């Protein structure tokens, strides 16, 4: 079947707890998501076969849609009337996802490149080893021995450069003799993507002890990063080694019509496709119970980070440990005893499936979520950087502006679109809550559109995009994204109450709204038009993207929330005085209609 003929598609995402299936059908010229079903994932005992959960989720889709998709345990292809589908695709993060350890000669150079490579392939990076990581040699060897990754990525040195460091790392690796996480009797897959001059020595050292795969250097020169060959190898090994060891996956691999992708890799693909199709700078986040994944595309460069221990249930207590209690308390518009808050968060950690019953309890979770989002974003900004160690040519004028190499690529003023997913953002009782959590955590500047992926469909669409970009983008625009609206946040500081901007918005439906924004206030303007024209005139000292005091005209989106005019200034800080801070929060939350009064 050619790609053009795709009319009915079934896609699943096998998560750690739930397997979700969606049915996509071509209606006229457009692909739409029509039915969905879900079932508990069955990777662990007593089932130990991922396909059971997949079949259960698809069965639910069958029941809801009236379409027969399964013939026993086989997917019926191609689609004929009300029977069968044209293709079945799937992603997977069950069983802990893809866990990797990476190594590079210099931590800030090849170490960082190796980390970006593995993260971009959808892995959780358990540790980054480097010759200069500050640990004694025996500590590095001990660490390699303790961790049981699915595979290891070894890099180091530029092509033709010195081989000493990377050979040393290989020797440590050999001495540690690490075992893979799954299948204790198998050799650990090791991808070598370092200095090509060391190929012979690496083979000699690791050839017998590990399942060694040699590929192109991921940092052939200081000025160039070449992550794709190693990323493809990671994906190949994920399918050939890791998936083969996971319960039921060999069968699942036979069922699919395209290679299974690690869930985060698929979300990354979808983020990239969306950014490219619209020429946007995009930030996408998936905040789960245990981890928070952050994806960004800035000026065409894709980055992904995963904050393995920042989440809303299993890791909620770690958010408290990392952010500090005062940072969580600062978002609460009421007083709460510190011991009470500590106990509440720990009780959520040990009983992760409980839900907030009261508004107060919901606000506590929202406070934690802001900090989890903020911390994960900080980690992302630290890794989404230009290459370090690159020699820069500077003119005389540049010498006055000493910008170092390795600057973060993330610039919130140039950020066009934020997409949030994960329970706390996707299922908040009021959409304004989701939008405010993202605004407070990311503090976007200028004009930023915002949306949530309400049922976390991005994994399915990312894997589908490998087969049909049109189908993936159609569903993404029409069914996946819930458009919240646009945040307008002038950058600058002033006295409270001072006028900082005049604005006017005209919707594609002819609706028009206009007003003024004063420093220290939040203004919520319900505005549903999908497309609108904005004219913003910030006062001197305030920037909406065109420089201080400069008028801006831009295309924006309305949505289920509408326009949020954030006059709290950038950089935004909360009042130090607790009573003023609580008054401010209450005022802003009220203006946004965030919580029931």
């Amino acid at each position: 079947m050619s790609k053009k003929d795709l009319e009915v598609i079934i896609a699943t995402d096998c998560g750690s707890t739930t397997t979700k299936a969606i049915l996509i059908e071509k209606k006229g010229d457009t692909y739409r998501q029509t039915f969905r079903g879900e079932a508990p994932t069955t990777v662990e005992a007593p089932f130990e076969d991922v396909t059971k959960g997949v079949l259960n989720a698809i069965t639910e889709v069958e029941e809801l849609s009236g379409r027969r998709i399964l013939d026993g345990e086989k997917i019926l292809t191609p689609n004929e009337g009300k029977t069968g589908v044209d293709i079945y695709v799937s992603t997977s993060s069950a069983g802990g996802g893809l866990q990797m350890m990476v190594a590079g000669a210099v931590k800030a150079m090849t170490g960082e490149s190796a980390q970006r490579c593995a993260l971009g392939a959808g892995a959780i990076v358990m540790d980054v080893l480097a010759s200069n990581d500050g640990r004694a040699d025996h500590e590095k060897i001990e660490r390699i021995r303790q961790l049981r990754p699915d595979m290891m990525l070894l890099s180091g040195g530029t092509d033709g450069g010195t081989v000493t460091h990377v050979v040393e790392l290989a020797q440590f690796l050999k001495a540690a003799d690490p075992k893979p996480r799954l299948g204790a009797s198998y050799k650990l897959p090791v991808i070598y993507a370092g200095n090509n001059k060391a190929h012979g020595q690496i083979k000699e050292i690791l050839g017998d002890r590990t399942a060694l795969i040699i590929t192109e250097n991921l940092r052939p020169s200081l000025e160039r990063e070449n992550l794709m060959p190693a990323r493809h190898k990671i994906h190949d090994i994920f399918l050939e080694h890791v998936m083969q060891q996971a319960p039921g996956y060999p069968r699942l691999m036979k069922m699919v019509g395209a290679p299974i992708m690690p869930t985060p890799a698929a979300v990354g693909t979808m983020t990239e496709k969306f950014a490219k199709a619209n020429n946007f700078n995009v930030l996408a986040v998936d905040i789960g119970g245990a981890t928070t994944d952050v994806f960004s595309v800035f000026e065409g460069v894709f980055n992904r980070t995963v904050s393995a221990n920042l989440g809303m249930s299993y890791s909620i207590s770690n958010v408290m440990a990392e952010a500090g209690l005062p940072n969580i308390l600062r978002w609460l518009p009421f007083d709460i005893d510190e011991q009470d808050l500590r106990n509440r968060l720990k009780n959520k950690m040990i009983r992760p499936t409980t839900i907030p019953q009261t508004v107060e309890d919901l606000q506590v979770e929202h406070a934690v979520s802001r900090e989890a989002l903020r911390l994960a974003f900080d980690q992302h900004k630290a890794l989404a950087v230009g290459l370090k160690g690159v020699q820069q040519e500077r003119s005389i004028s540049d010498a006055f502006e000493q910008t170092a190499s390795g600057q973060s690529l993330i610039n919130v003023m140039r950020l066009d679109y934020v997409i949030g997913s994960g329970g706390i953002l996707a299922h908040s009782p009021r959409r304004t809550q989701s939008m405010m959590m993202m605004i407070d955590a990311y503090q976007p500047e200028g004009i930023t559109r915002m949306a949530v992926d309400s049922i976390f469909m991005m994994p399915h669409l990312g894997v589908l995009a490998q087969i049909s970009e049109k189908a993936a983008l159609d569903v993404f625009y029409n069914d996946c994204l819930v458009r919240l609206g646009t945040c307008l946040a002038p950058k600058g500081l002033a006295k409270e109450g001072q006028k900082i901007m005049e604005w006017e918005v005209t919707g594609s439906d002819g609706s028009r709204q206009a007003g003024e924004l004063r420093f220290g206030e939040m203004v919520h303007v319900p505005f549903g038009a999908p497309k609108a024209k904005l004219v913003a005139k910030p006062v001197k000292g305030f920037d909406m993207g065109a420089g201080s005091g400069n008028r801006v005209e831009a295309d924006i989106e309305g949505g289920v929330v509408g326009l949020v005019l954030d006059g709290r200034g950038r950089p935004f800080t909360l009042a130090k005085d607790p009573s003023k801070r609580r008054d401010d929060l209450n005022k802003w939350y009220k203006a946004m209609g965030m919580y029931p009064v």
Partner: protein
Amino acid sequence: MPCTVLRKKRLLPIPGKVLAAMGQQVGAMDVVAQTELPGKVFSVNVANRLAVGPEEIKNFMVKNEGDAVKKGEIIAENKPFLKWFKTSIESPVEGTVESVSPVTGQVLLREPPKVLPIKSYVKGSIVEVVPEFGVTVEAEGTFIQGIFGVGGETNGEIAVAVSSPDEELTAEALSEGHRGKIVVGGKHAGLATIKRAVELGVNAIVVGGIHDRDLRQLLGYDIGVAVTGTEKIGLTLIVTEGFGMIPMAEYTFKLLSSRNGEHASVSGATQIRAGVMRPEIIVPGYPKNVSECKKDQGRGWIEPGDPIRIIREPHFGVIGTVKSLPPELTVIGSESHARVLEVSLEGGEVIVVPRANIEVLEK
């Protein structure tokens, strides 16, 4: 469960030797499998220390790959014309020379392997042997699960130190007689109590609740993710209900009291993500008036009349009985739509609680 049949897998992390046979009766302290963990590796940069090129170091090695070395023994030295300029490199550890690298100029030394024994942990019989890795032990006895714990496996005699499940376990309630025992308290144990127990050599404390602040003081850090069992705080701590002051469930308290004075195996190991593991107390053998053990009979669903505990604010820790289970989604105080149940409280009041926020108690 007053008496249940339970199975424990006792496996080595890497292949080794299984020391127990199928059908064999084992005690809690018997070693059932054993392996040798490869020794730690240390590196010595011989090229740097002797100021020679990496490719030259083989000429200066006194000990070669595979040779045994003692701590302080010379492994490499140069041969200058003048003795004053002689440099000798001593081994920092006892072990063997693992490798000599002419590329990096490093010599890797490996300490002798360490023996890693795995004990049976519970008294029972071997019902499965996993070649090279270990066994499964089957035991009959009382099995109680906690909700959170710290510290690893230990054992000792159960000593109930309070008279009711809602009594606080105080430092004063502990004495020399509790050394080596599993002390059972009521609603809470504070920092002073736990510290006193460590001083006295108590093996484990089982209690309804603790304050997170005390736990932080005890460990010196905040537990971020609930993966525990390796902490070294001087005892194993098991919390049966949660964080705060929460009376131990009546049933749990009665069960532990019924086995007072008997020997138990306990573990504080908790893991709440994939492959959930909760802390546990296992008392082998039949309790009084019980002559037959049954496999776990958990029904897996809730029915009106079931006793439950609420496990989230605003009614955290409150005990009641299921009155009804409305099937439709209900808007709760936070404005979320959730499946709920009606709970009758002791005084006759009826409240509505999300189903996700309750735990069914055993009768």
